[in-house]
């Protein structure tokens, strides 16, 4: 119960901070829209180049880079004094859970905006939209769970932004493969039962990652 209250107040603090500064969010919004626009310009010259698999792959690559950039900030923006302050008043489990949830929320909003803008600019071949949105939801949660922990690890090192990319890509690739397959099924409007395997695996991977983060974060936090 105490943990829940801690998590909620930490999320609230992150949201308020974000709302007042609007720095990260606007930055990421601009990042998303310029990437999508670059894609539009590079594909738009010959619009028949963009087949459905390519459409799907490019969307997920944009989402991947967006989330790496957005989530990398989650620990780097906290200065040393504030971290020490948290250390004295809340439990590390509360911090990591709050960060994961906040990042999932942030990623969900960014991913939805990205999808809408992308579909608007490059056309929308999705046949099963609810299923596709479900895969985006799972993607947002999955990216935020694994990347939050990675950004915690990377923020301790000297050259954290390079390290963030190096550490996160191998860990996230299995998830990305599942997501691409699931969203491809949704794009083609295949029967939903076909995606059940991917869906369950994604949920299982998320569970593993959250549990491991929950257990390991106290050790990371102590330094």
């Amino acid at each position, binding site marked *: 119960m105490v943990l829940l209250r801690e998590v909620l107040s930490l999320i609230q603090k992150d949201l308020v901070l974000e709302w007042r500064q609007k720095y990260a969010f606007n930055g990421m919004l601009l990042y998303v829209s310029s990437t999508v626009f670059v894609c539009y310009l590079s594909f738009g010259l010959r619009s028949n180049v963009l087949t459905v698999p390519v459409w799907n792959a490019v969307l997920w690559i944009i989402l991947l880079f967006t989330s790496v950039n957005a989530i990398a900030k989650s620990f780097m923006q906290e200065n040393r004094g504030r971290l020490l302050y948290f250390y004295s008043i809340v439990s590390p489990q509360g911090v990591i859970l709050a960060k994961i949830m906040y990042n999932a929320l942030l990623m969900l909003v960014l991913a939805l905006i990205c999808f809408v803008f992308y579909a608007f600019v490059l056309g929308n071949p999705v046949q099963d939209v609810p299923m596709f949105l479900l895969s985006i939801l799972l993607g947002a949660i999955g990216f935020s769970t*694994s990347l939050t922990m990675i950004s915690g*690890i990377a923020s301790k*090192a000297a050259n954290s932004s390079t*390290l963030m990319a*190096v550490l996160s890509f*191998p*860990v996230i690739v299995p998830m990305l493969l599942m997501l691409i397959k699931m969203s491809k099924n949704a794009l083609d409007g295949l029967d939903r039962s076909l995606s059940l395997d991917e869906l369950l*695996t994604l949920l299982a991977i998320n569970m593993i990652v959250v549990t491991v983060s929950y257990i*390991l974060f106290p050790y990371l936090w102590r330094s």
Partner: protein
Amino acid sequence: MKKNWWKVLAVLLLIFTVVAGMLTEVPRLAILNETIRNLYFHVPMWFGMTLILLISVIYSIKYLRNPTVRNDVVAYESAKVGILFGVLGIVTGMEWAKFTWGEYWSNDPKQNAAAIGLLIYFAYLVLRSSFAEQQQRARISAVYNIFAFAALIPLLFILPRLTDSLHPGNGGNPGFNSYDLDNRLRVVFYPAVLGWTLLGIWIINVKSRLELLRQRLYETV
């Protein structure tokens, strides 16, 4: 000598593997032909890698519970030996694939998963090298090691089973188990797995002792 019996066992088992693996009768199968002998060299690499990485994770957990230099060194050396086994596994697999599938790399899910798995551990090495302070390096790389292993399990054991693959044991291709009736393979295969794994543990043993001595030397100098 009493403590070193397993090293003798490792040498004997590996001699047996190489000699018997090259000379004994194997099932005659189309396409595979003599390349079936790769079972004694390629497959034990993955068994060995998984086991050795498990050792590395166990020592990382031990480090977090009880931070000693020894636990950190063993975890690091095991991760390196695990990477060595993984690279050898990929190389032997590619060589085999050239003769049976016609390409060194045919974008097969299992090959890709193996490559990603290795990338995870290369990232571990990069992470380690980016810290100057010993204790911080040990703790944070231990955290990443455990995290990476948790990410590796679905990659190696769940995802390949969801997709079709050319690899034996997937997508209707006969795997090792379908040779159940043929015990000739098993006679060499199990000693091979044990022998290669023992060799890996031996390398870890020697390398971590060397590393510990080196650190003690630097401390005293």
